[in-house]
């Protein structure tokens, strides 16, 4: 056999590496239930990306540790970003400046609207009322189908914002006759300090606080948050860790822990599951998810199956068929969940609230037009069963 010379070796090597070029992103591949393609899209720390000066809308972060060489470890969410001075965290809203961790999103919401509470969605929390909704930039996830990617995947300095410090938020909520303030749209956990300070003031004024979140938060800050929360809607994006890593850039376990904590602290919450075709529309997964909910949280927390629409980067998939959602609703109810709703589907029985005991309609929803005549206080008018939720 002819021996290979150095030139041949180098040429062959170069050809081999050229053929491997498309895997440049050093993505790891797996053939698991999440299919092919990159297995994990989790965000990375932005090295040296922090602004030189701390701006007006900043405050020192509450949950972090200082370690060697002025590095900080953020303790707010399970990403636990280790930041050297000048670094920016995965969420884009927190930086290390001179060995201290700062939030750059305090009093500078880039979105502020008055929304029907059903839009959050919250169906068992003061139906028919309005929520003054605010968001700053930033998110600790990288969801490919994010509907608010313009702010969730942006840095604070990149967007227009209004100045609305906590007392201003409360005043605006009162002025707009909103019964609650919702921390929503992007990821409320990222503006934790702003949310906490606002929530305390709102509570003093008798305004409810709503946390609309992906639930990716550590236990310690969550416990503090629970002390001011009145309601929450937490996304359970799927019941598969593989899909969490692939479509959302997060992990499942911390989200499940969040549900357990909210349940332990008696915070009213509702669960939203976006049914992404080809990924989350698996009956077995729904059964497993319902089993976990029943075992760990009980049957009374409302579950919303939300319809997927092609958005942001996940724009080459079709909508979720309505029949899939209908089937999942029936399946979840058969498994034992008492209140199962359909989101992003109008004119469907899954929009209404039925008494889980007698099956009569209690709250009829025609979009944002609510008829709650059959709910007396917190009970079914027909069989007097107490319906879980916050009704007034």
């Amino acid at each position, binding site marked *: 056999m002819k021996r290979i010379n150095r030139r041949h070796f180098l040429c062959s090597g170069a050809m081999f590496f050229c053929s491997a070029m498309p895997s440049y992103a050093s993505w790891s591949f797996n053939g698991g239930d999440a299919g092919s393609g990159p297995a994990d899209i989790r965000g990375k720390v932005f090295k040296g990306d922090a602004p030189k000066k701390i701006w007006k809308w900043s405050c020192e972060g509450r949950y972090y540790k200082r370690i060697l060489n002025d590095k900080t470890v953020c303790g707010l969410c399970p990403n636990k970003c280790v930041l050297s001075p000048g670094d920016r965290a995965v969420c884009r809203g927190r930086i290390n400046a001179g060995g201290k961790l700062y939030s750059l999103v305090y009093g500078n919401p880039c979105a502020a609207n008055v929304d029907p509470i059903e839009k959050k969605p919250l169906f068992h929390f003061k139906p028919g009322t309005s929520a003054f909704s605010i968001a700053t930039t930033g998110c600790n996830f990288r969801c490919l189908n994010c509907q608010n990617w313009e702010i969730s995947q942006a840095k604070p300095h990149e967007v227009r914002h209004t100045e609305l410090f906590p007392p201003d938020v409360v005043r605006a909520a009162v002025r707009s006759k909103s019964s609650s303030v919702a921390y929503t749209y992007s990821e409320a956990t990222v503006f934790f300090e702003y949310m906490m300070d606002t929530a305390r003031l709102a509570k003093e004024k008798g305004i409810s606080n709503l946390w609309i979140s992906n639930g990716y938060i550590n236990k310690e800050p969550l416990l503090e948050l629970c002390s001011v929360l009145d309601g929450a809607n937490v996304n359970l994006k799927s019941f598969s860790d593989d899909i969490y890593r692939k479509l959302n850039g997060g992990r499942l376990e911390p989200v499940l822990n969040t549900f357990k904590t909210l349940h332990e602290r008696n915070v009213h919450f509702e669960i939203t599951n976006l049914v992404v075709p080809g990924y989350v529309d698996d009956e077995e997964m729904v059964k497993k998810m319902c089993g976990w909910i029943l075992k760990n949280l009980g049957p009374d927390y409302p579950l919303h199956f939300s319809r997927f629409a092609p958005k942001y980067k996940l724009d080459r998939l079709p909508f979720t068929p309505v029949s899939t959602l209908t089937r999942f609703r029936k399946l979840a109810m058969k498994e034992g969940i008492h209140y199962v709703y359909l989101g992003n589907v109008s004119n469907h029985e899954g929009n209404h609230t039925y008494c889980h005991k007698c099956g009569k309609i209690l709250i009829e929803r*025609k979009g944002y037009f609510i008829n709650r005549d059959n709910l007396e206080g917190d009970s079914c008018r027909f069989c007097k069963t107490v319906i879980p939720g916050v009704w007034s």
Partner: protein
Amino acid sequence: MKRKNEKSVVRVVIATGISSVVTQLLVIREFLVQFAGNEFVIALSLFSWLIIGGIGALSARLITPRFFRAAAVRLGGLSLFLTVLSAVTLLSIRYLRDFFFIHGSSVGFYPTLLYIFSITAPYALLLGFLLPYSLYVLRVEKNDFPSYRIYIADNFGDVTGGALLSFALVYLVTPMQAVCIAGLPLLFAVFPLFFKNFPGKVFYSIGAALTLTVFLGGIFLEIHSLSPQKGKLVYYGESRYGRIKVLQDEELFTLFSDGIPVYSNQNMIMAEEVVHYPLSQLKNIKNVLVISTTGGMMAEIEKYKPETIDYVELDPEVSDILFRFNLIKRVSGLSVINQDGRAYLINTDKTYDAIIVNLPEPETFQINRFFTDRFFALARNHLTPQGIFSFSMQGYDNYLAEPQRQKLSSLFNTVSDHFKNLLLLPGQEIVFLCSDLPISRDIPSLLAQKEIPTDYISRFFYGNLTQWRIDELNSLIDPKTPKNIDNSPRLMRLMFSQWFAKFSTSPAWFFIITAIILAGYLFRLHLEEYVLFSTGCMTMGCEIMIIFAFQIYFGYIYHQIGLIITVFLAGLLPGAWLGNHLRHHARKVLLFTDSMLIGMMFCFLAAYIFMGDKLPVLFYIMTGFLISVACGCQFPVALRLRSDDNSSVARAFSADLAGAAFGTLVTSVVLIPYVGITGAAFGLIAIKFISLILVRVSHEKN
């Protein structure tokens, strides 16, 4: 020495041209289906193909004398391999996409670029290599075999391949079948090379059998390679304009056009938004014009009981499929007009109470024509005095990002010249309502007065479209944003910005690296090679500009655009023949053709600016033909000046391809969007002018 291979090799070159052009067009089309179908990706696909081809041609000069001596049988083997690669490349694009990227997701600029480069590289490198290599094989037998004959043979193959695909295969067969049919002449053409040079015909038989197996395998895998991960593929077709697939998932039917889910039978929100926001404003509706549609739209229009609904859809296959799968309803008074919407409006005298434009985002020059100053004026002229014109852009949920704000502002400023009242309504789509009469924003109450039932608007409008949200959107319009006009499509630039913003990326590094490599390359070019480079650049730039300009006045007319492209290739043949006959006056010919190219460009620009809509189709065809003749003429002449040795020929082929690559990229994504058609023409003239000066100065030196 007996020239036993001459005819065979020339036949192989022609057959390679046929196969390669068909493969090239199908590969570019496939990239558009798999990735964003915007002008950037179109340009990148063509750029990659040409630049890698140029590298392949250049590599023949380095590889052949040292490692791979010219031999007919080797040419035959490589050509067989190229034939196989055409099918493999097409299938790889489909199968590897979901291997490297997440299924169902769109892909950003750099991953797209890398994917296109990597997948195109094996085929384009080999193709580029084979052109000069064929010449080297011929020169083994006849040392002075003229290179221009290979150039002519290649171009003849290219013209044939282009015409074959554009005017026949695209109507009759699927892409895999087209690649196989176009590859068969090459499969037969290589046979004599083996027969005459290799004692064992067995080798050819094995090679041919393998090729046919791959072809048949490819055809067999065609449907499999297009099948969805979820649901069932219930329709697949390749029209002149793109790929149409209909997927069924339970009761949901979705029509995918070039990989994007465009129509669905369960997207009532969009159908209600685009229909009721404009039509609810009108008191009496007789005639409605719909330019393209959305699922469920006709049923919503029917609620107003208009006398006629003219539905204009460019692609007849799309409208047929929409009806077949009940994605739109056949309602009373509906007429389907399969024509370019803009061309239809130019040619009709009919006026309408409402014109609803329902096209995708203006990501290509073709779609951009429906969002320009001249189009808005055209639409205005076809409206009754109390009529309403509406179109929509992609919506947002809670924050209007800057590139999108600029896009909306540009559109607002453009359309506001033609209507007294304008209102933007946010939602799944941002709907522009334009009329001379006052426009009401309380759509549910208008619908209630007319007793028109709706599913979404009646239930969700007041919560989703609060006065505050409507006011905020309308107040964010920037009056200083430049208008989008036909000759200077600013909107394209904003669309690029929006695409880059979505992936948090910037093309800056790509352009910097390309510019550095280009500068290094240009620095090493000889004068004659620079002439060819600049001609390649100008020819491709002109082709893009002429098609762009043609569409503005005539609309997207498939056959005529196909004819312009064919003419651009065909002109090279008489040009090369002429150049060879005039090669003894080489320098004068170069000066003349360079001057002619510059002059032609000036003439085209002047005619376009001053005569515009009065120019006949023939003008565009003749301009293309003459530019192409001048380009073809220069190749043999430049080689005559430089030297017709093997190395120079490879460098000349390479310069021509690199110039074409650069011309494609710079004209499509820089010149036209940033400086408009006039600026683009002057940019191309400047590149050619440098060539003219260099030839002139060099002449004086000599």
